[in-house]
């Protein structure tokens, strides 16, 4: 009689690791390490690749998201009570929803929707910075709260002023809304790589990041962050994955939304294949939504 010796869960951990390395798709990788405790222990936890919120009208309690990992559009369910409201931001597993489109945005109209379950809000500065003309509407703040309204607890913090919370870092890059006065070749709406800045919370000093060191950098409405391309081989090295607030062009009533990659080494812009963002303006802007598990 032959004894049954086949016990797949007991494969040597080196083999389990080799198999997991062959599953670059995030879903397969997560399925693989969710099979049993042996396999889970032999594989390391990976960060999730962020979703891109696809601008669309919400007709039901469903929101479309685009996954860079397999270039597919997926749907996420949204709780019933926010039906009819629209997403204006996304952050760490949260969608920030607002009630109306045309009324001036008021903090009372903001709703947080838990997609995951952790809160980290960053409000975007929506107006040109009076102190720094280079900072336009599209300039983003991450990991720092940039208040849209005066801080009730601190009268010195004005509307739109930066308030650095003791959080990790700030990255920023610009996508120009207007033709670049210094460089006529850069047209309105074209991506001009300005700089990636990092803010150290301890001294609030801003440093320029000269080299992404192979990482992929996500730049978006609500937040910007980088991810390891070694961990996620399907992400492009030294590339900025960008999305923007809808920009209005001349003779263009509706404006335009955009999504693609910008290679910091070659300065080439590429649209990501299969990306669904060739939409005309809808108020719901595209934004990166990252899982709270990434924190």
């Amino acid at each position: 009689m032959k004894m049954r010796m086949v016990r797949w869960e007991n494969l040597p951990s080196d083999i389990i690791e080799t198999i997991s390395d062959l599953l670059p798709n995030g879903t397969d990788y997560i399925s693989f390490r969710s099979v049993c405790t042996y396999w889970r222990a032999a594989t390391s936890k990976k960060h999730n690749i962020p979703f891109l919120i696809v601008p669309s009208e919400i007709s039901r309690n469903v929101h479309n998201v685009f996954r860079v990992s397999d270039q597919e559009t997926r749907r996420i369910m949204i709780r019933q009570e926010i039906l009819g409201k629209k997403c204006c931001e996304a952050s760490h597993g949260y969608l920030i929803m607002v009630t109306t489109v045309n009324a001036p945005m008021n903090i009372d109209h903001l709703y947080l929707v838990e997609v995951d379950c952790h809160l980290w809000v960053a409000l975007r500065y929506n107006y040109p910075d009076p102190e720094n003309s280079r900072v336009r509407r599209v300039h983003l703040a991450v990991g720092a709260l940039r208040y849209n309204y005066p801080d009730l607890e601190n009268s010195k913090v004005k509307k739109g002023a930066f308030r650095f919370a003791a959080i990790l870092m700030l990255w920023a890059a610009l996508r120009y809304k207007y033709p670049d006065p210094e460089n006529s070749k850069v047209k309105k709406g074209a991506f001009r790589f300005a700089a990636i800045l990092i803010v150290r919370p301890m001294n609030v000093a801003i440093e320029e990041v000269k080299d992404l060191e192979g990482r992929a950098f996500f730049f978006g409405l609500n937040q910007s962050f980088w991810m390891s391309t070694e961990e996620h081989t399907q992400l492009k090295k030294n590339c900025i994955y960008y999305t923007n607030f809808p920009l209005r062009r001349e003779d263009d009533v509706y404006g335009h939304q955009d999504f693609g990659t910008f290679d910091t080494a070659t300065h080439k812009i590429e649209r990501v294949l299969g990306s669904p963002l060739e939409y005309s303006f809808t108020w719901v802007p595209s934004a990166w939504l990252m899982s709270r598990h990434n924190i």
Partner: protein
Amino acid sequence: MVGVKKKMVTLVSSDGVEFVVEKRVAEQSLFIKNALNEGGVEEKVMIPIPKVTSDTLSSVLEYCEKHASATEFQENEIEEWDKEYIEKADLDLLYYLLQASYSMSIMGLMELGAKKVASLIRGKSPQEIRELFNIKNDFTPEQEEEIRREMQWNYE
């Protein structure tokens, strides 16, 4: 072939079956190569291969044979051969081949087997994977909850 005496070694499977193979074939396994180096270059060496049964060993040696003479073939020819070789292995044999490639240190075979497993896993849910490989779900409720959250992000 006159005058060229091929160096042979004898491998003994865990169930006691002897396989006489050319040294260059056996040396596809780093485990055997090291064993031969340690033991000097004596002829008529007997090398026991623990934990590898005769059925598995014969299949492993088929792989080694092909790859020992890999230089005689085009690269894509070898690739094709590998594909067919691993395709005809059933799940149990695949498991034994992986274990054997690991204990005998045959990197190419291990990667080939891992690729096959990865291809079987792609597109499947954890439960489907468990059913395919006959694996028990041994997570605690807490771990299940953590997994559920991770899944939530990646499925739907």
